[in-house]
C-alpha cells in the first residue's frame, strides 16, 4: 500500500562526479516495492526544491529493510540528495506506479534490458526478480563517455547474460548509441529476445520503438515526465497517447508499452 515512509539515510556511494547511489532505512517500503516502481522523495522543511522529486527504486533488501536509489545530479533536488548528511531523514512517498511485469516469461526465457545513462536506475531490482524467475537477460548500457558509466560497477554479479556497453565518444565499449548495439542483435529473426525492458530519454525510446514494433518484440519502457504529485492528482505528468489523448504516466505508467505512446506527438 502507498504511504509516506520515513527514510533515514544510511550510506552514499559515489561512482563518478554527479553519479551516486543513496541507501535509506525504510522497512515497509523495502517490503512493498516491486521492480520499476518509484517514490516521490522530499527532504523535510525545505522550500527548495518545492515539489517532491521522483526516483525509481534501484534495489531493495526486505531483510535489512533498506531501499537504494541510483541518482544523477541535475538540479536542486538531486543536488540536495547528493549533499544530504548520513543520518538525515527524507520522506519517501510510495511505492508508486505500475512496475515492470515478468508475466508470461517462463524459466529459461531470455530478455534484453536497454538503459540510457542513469536510466539504468530501476534495473538492479528487476534483475533480482528475473533471477528468481529463472529469466536470463542481456544488459545494454549506453552513456556519453566512460566516466558516466562507472556506475556499471553496481551491476556486478546481477546480470545472467551478456553486458554490452557503448559510449557516444567511444571511450568505452562500442562507439555510438546503445540503441544501435541493441538493434543489431535484436534484428536477427527469430529475435533472441522474448521481451525488451528499457529506460532512458524519450529519443532513445522512439528509436527502440522503431526496432521492436516491426520485429514484434513486446517491450516495456520506463518513461519519465515532470511530476507534480506522483499519484494521479495533478495531471502534470501526461504523455501523448495512441488510444486516448493523454496517458497519466505516474499511475498508468511509468512502465508503458510503446503501443500506448503517440510518438508523433512527443
Amino acid at each position, binding site marked *: 500500500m502507498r504511504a509516506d515512509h520515513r527514510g533515514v539515510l544510511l550510506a552514499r556511494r559515489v561512482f563518478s562526479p554527479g553519479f551516486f547511489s543513496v541507501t535509506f532505512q525504510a522497512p515497509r517500503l523495502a517490503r512493498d516495492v516491486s521492480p520499476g516502481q518509484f517514490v516521490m522523495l522530499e527532504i523535510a522543511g525545505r522550500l527548495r526544491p518545492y515539489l517532491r522529486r521522483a526516483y525509481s527504486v534501484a534495489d531493495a533488501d526486505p531483510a535489512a529493510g533498506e531501499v537504494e536509489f541510483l541518482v544523477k545530479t541535475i538540479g536542486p533536488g538531486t543536488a540536495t540528495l547528493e549533499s544530504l548528511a548520513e543520518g538525515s531523514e527524507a520522506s519517501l*512517498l510510495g511505492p508508486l506506479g505500475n512496475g515492470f511485469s515478468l508475466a508470461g516469461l517462463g524459466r529459461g526465457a531470455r530478455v534484453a534490458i536497454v538503459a540510457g545513462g542513469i536510466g539504468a536506475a530501476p534495473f538492479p531490482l528487476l534483475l533480482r526478480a528475473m533471477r528468481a524467475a529463472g529469466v536470463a537477460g542481456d544488459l545494454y548500457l549506453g552513456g556519453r563517455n566512460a566516466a558516466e558509466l562507472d556506475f556499471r560497477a553496481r551491476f556486478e554479479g546481477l546480470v545472467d547474460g551478456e553486458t554490452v556497453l557503448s559510449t557516444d565518444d567511444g571511450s568505452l565499449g562500442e562507439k555510438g548509441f546503445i540503441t544501435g548495439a541493441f538493434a543489431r542483435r535484436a534484428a536477427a529473426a527469430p529475435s533472441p529476445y522474448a521481451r525488451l525492458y528499457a529506460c532512458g530519454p524519450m529519443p532513445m525510446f522512439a528509436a527502440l520503438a522503431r526496432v521492436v514494433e516491426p520485429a514484434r518484440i513486446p517491450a516495456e519502457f520506463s518513461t519519465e515526465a515532470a511530476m507534480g504529485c506522483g499519484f494521479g492528482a495533478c495531471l502534470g505528468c501526461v504523455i501523448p497517447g495512441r488510444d486516448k*489523448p493523454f496517458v497519466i504516466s505516474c499511475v498508468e505508467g511509468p512502465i508503458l508499452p510503446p503501443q500506448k505512446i503517440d510518438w508523433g506527438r512527443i
Partner: protein
Amino acid sequence: METRLGPLHLKNPVVTASGTFGYGLEFTEFVDLSTIGALCTKGLSLAPHAGNVPPRICETPAGMLNAIGLQNVGVKSFLEEKLPRLRELGATVIANVWGDIEEDYVAVVGALEDAEGLAAIELNISCPNVERGGMLFGNSPAATASLVARVRAATKRTLVVKLSPNAPDLVESARAARDSGADILSLVNTFVGMAIDPVTARPRLSFGTGGLSGPAIKPLAVRMVFQVARALPDVPLMGIGGISDLSDVLEFLAAGASAVQIGTANFRDPGVSGRLVDELEAYCRDRDTTVRSLVGRAQRAPTGGEVPGGDAGAEG
C-alpha cells in the same frame, strides 16, 4: 469546528482546492475523506476534456506553474464513476465547474442539479469566454455578473464563485458575483505567470504561460482576502493561496475567511488536509476558542502606522 458559510454547513473549515485533490479518490490512502470539511473536484465540463500538451507544470521558487488545460473526465462519468464512491466514503463534495460560454456552465450545473450528495457548486470563472474572444469571464465584472446570474437562475444549489486574482479590480468582481447571486466567494485562483528555460530560451510550459500557486503567492492572497472581507463583510469567504500549515490557516481566518482551501500543498504532502483538521481542532481546544471567533480578527487590528509626513507608500 462546525463552520457556516451562508447556506453551507461544513463540519470544519478545511477544504481541499479544485485541481489539487483529483476527484478525492486519489487520496484515500492518505486522508479519511469523511474528516475534512469538504473537497472541491477537478474542474468539470460537460464533455470529457483532454487539456494541454506537456510540459504542463514546472517548479518556481516556493511554488509552481501549471497549465493543465482543465483536463477532466466530464460530468457524466464523474456522476457515474466518482460521486457514488465519494458518497460511500462519506465525503462532503463541492463540484467545481467551467465552460467556454455561459451555456456550457448552465449545462454542467443542470447535469449536476439532481445528483445526490453534492454540497455545493463552485464556478471557476478564470476561463476564456470564447464568445468574447477568449477574454476571461473573471476579468470583467460585467462578464462575471452575467455568467453568475445565468447559473444562479439554473440551480437551487449553494453557489460558490471562485475569483481570479488577475481581475483588474478584485473587489468589483467580488461585488458583481455577490450581487448576481453567489452565496459564497472563494479566492484566489492562480496568478498568470511564466518561466523560461535560460539556455533554450523556450517557455518551460508548452502553453507559454501558466498559473502560479503555492507558498509564493500567500502574501498576495492574504491581502486579497483581507480586502474583499473588508469591502463585503456580509459575504462568507473561502481563503485560498499557498496554505501549507496551521499558521497559514490561522492567517487566512484572521484575514476574514470563514473557511480555507488547501491546494498545491496536497501534492507535496497528500495527508496535509486531514492533519490540519486535527491541528486546528487541538489549537481551538487548547485556547478554548472556536473557529468562528478566529475569523476576521485582523480586520479589527489597527494599521496604517506612519509618522507625521510619512506617506502611504506600500511599495518601498
